[in-house]
């Protein structure tokens, strides 16, 4: 579970101070799906970086399962990312010189998993995203959708408790976007992940349980749209969500 208390992140550009996140207090329960919408430059990606320990807050605290991420030394923070947090990026961020299997395997290297065990887990992860037959392909030999599936497999191969996705469908066409959305929802449901997803896409945001809107560094939570799914629960149709103010 995430507990954010009065979190702020300020960037200093010369004499100017830019507040990317301001006075944010938020609780994200285990297994919850939170979608964050908002216009460009209003702090969505910054919030995701703070939740993932990729950046430290200027003030306030961010606790993950009772551990304050901001207070951890870098080595321990890196360990938390290795074990508990999976990332999915808009531009996939695959290592261009490694195959799909090797990209997925890269997520297991910090955990010290043995070679045989790594191979088995990589194969299972690729199979779960429908890419078992693309294991040996380089990113340049795959479509955008296949690359994003590989990135999802990489994020999930270490069985994290949290999945952070930054515009996962931003670079995909409509059909592929739907495939990825369906895949994410399936995996979220099956694994009980805590999923925080940043998106411009309202139709994607509607799939989530909760929707928040970032505006000028402040998060406004919409009314919760649907309850958390139990194990084996069927799909709950999303409730309508108002688009964020212009």
């Amino acid at each position, binding site marked *: 579970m995430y507990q954010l208390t009065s979190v702020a992140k300020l960037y200093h550009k010369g004499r100017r101070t830019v507040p990317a996140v301001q006075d944010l207090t938020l609780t994200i329960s285990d297994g919850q799906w939170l979608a964050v919408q908002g216009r460009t430059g209003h702090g969505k990606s*910054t919030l995701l970086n703070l939740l993932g320990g990729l950046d430290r807050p200027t003030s306030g605290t961010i606790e993950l399962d009772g551990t304050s991420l901001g207070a951890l030394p870098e080595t321990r923070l890196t360990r938390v990312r290795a074990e508990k947090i999976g*990332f999915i990026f808009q*531009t996939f*961020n695959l290592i*261009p010189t490694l195959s799909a299997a090797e990209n997925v395997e*890269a997520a297991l290297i910090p955990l010290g998993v043995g070679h045989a065990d790594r191979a088995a887990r990589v194969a299972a992860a690729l199979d779960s995203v429908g890419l078992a037959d693309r294991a040996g392909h380089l990113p340049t030999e795959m479509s955008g959708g296949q690359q994003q599936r590989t990135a999802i497999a990489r994020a999930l191969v270490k069985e994290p408790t949290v999945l952070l996705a930054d515009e996962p469908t931003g670079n995909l066409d409509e059909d592929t976007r739907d495939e990825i959305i369906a895949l994410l929802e399936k995996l979220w449901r099956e694994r009980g992940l805590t999923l925080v997803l940043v998106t411009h896409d309202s139709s994607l945001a509607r799939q989530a349980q909760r929707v928040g809107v970032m505006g000028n560094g402040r998060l406004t939570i919409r009314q919760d749209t649907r309850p958390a799914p139990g194990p084996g629960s069927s799909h709950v149709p999303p409730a309508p969500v108002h688009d964020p103010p212009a």
Partner: protein
Amino acid sequence: MFFVTYLRRELRRRMRQAIFVALGLALGVGLVVTVAAASAGVARAQSRVLSTLYGEATTVTVTGGRWQEPSTLPKGTDTIAPGPGGEICSAPGGTCVSGDGKTLTMIDIMNEGISVAKVAAAARLPGVAAAAGGIFLNESTISWPKKGASTARGSGPGGGRPGGYPMEGVDTSHPTLGPLGGATLISGRLFTAADADAHVAVVDSGYAASHGLRIGSHLTLGLTTWPDLSIIKGIRFTVIGIVGQAAGSNPPSVYVPLKAAQELPWLKTGPSSVQGRVTNIYLAAASAADVPAVTREVARLLPGTKVTSASDLASEVAGSVTSFAKLANDLGRWLAVLVLIAAFAVASLLTMAAVSRRAAEFGTLKALGWRTRRIIAQVLGESLATGIAGAAAGVALGCTGAAIAAAVTPSVSATVGSNGGGNGTLIGGSPVQTVAVPLHLSVSAGLIVLAVLLAVAGAVLAGAFGSWRIARLRPADALSRVA
């Protein structure tokens, strides 16, 4: 292994850049190897010349002052000289006979004699391990053919054929102190203490070949015909050993025991007599560190003599060997250093640029939970692989450069001071000797190790700069660089 796979793929992706960096390192390292091989080759050449003439690095040589013929010879002193028409004359203006079919021999000492008692005194100096006396001689001859003989005329007076060679009288109780110490025994044996009174000789292999000598052969030294047609029979020696000596070093051709040398015609009596005297003292210092002190003490013991060590004479060596040494040590060394620095700088800049381009990749790895030092190890591994390739190419380039340098400059000349001038009466030695010194440029195992270390150090240095950038990279900033 994931590490090796990632490394290999990344180097393949930026193959051109990796080759460029490796070649730069190879060029710098190759220059270092070539210059070092040239410097070592020149130093060896100088050392061979000096050790042949003057002994090993711990040898100190004492040489008597230049021998000067007295202005007035003692009454009854026999003199002999060639006449302009090929005669043998008892003195300028004295009785002459035809030289046809005869040989005129002169044995000269080059330096003033030093009492043998001084040899013993020098041996007792602190820091001296051993001392031996020697007599450096020059036998000069002119031979005239018999009248009517078809032998071609020579370049000596009256068409005589000049000849001669340097000789050395050796203390048989210390045979390897002195020029004989630099020789290599080819057949037979060297002198022992038991040969002190014997008429035995050790000859140079070239001299043996030109005179048809082998072990057991005989040669006569000092044979000459006087104007009254009496013959100085000289002394007959038996060859007991044949030695090889450094090519072009112009060492003595014949070595005889010291006592026998003192009994040779011309040296037993008269102004050139060396009875109870030697012309050189060879001292072996206990260690190289003792050489300066020994040099000072013996100079104090023997004023008026010339005291030299191998390091003193090294500065006197002139000729193209010195020019070559200067070229290798000064210009060559600085050029190699500059090229190496440039190679290191280029490698560092390219590595840092590559790290910048891969910022998003490294940010992603950090997001996946890779520790900074693991990422640094990956970058250093890539640099190391490039450095090893550069080292291999550099060693190959250096060996090729050394071979080309040796082929282009097969030998250089070395000019060194001799043991002194002749007595001016006949065919004496020149004040200096110019010898051809073969130049052997070889790349030693130590040099190869140095080359590898230099290339690897350069590559690691380049990787270190890149690593420094990685360490400072914040994941969020790195990820924001995704296009």
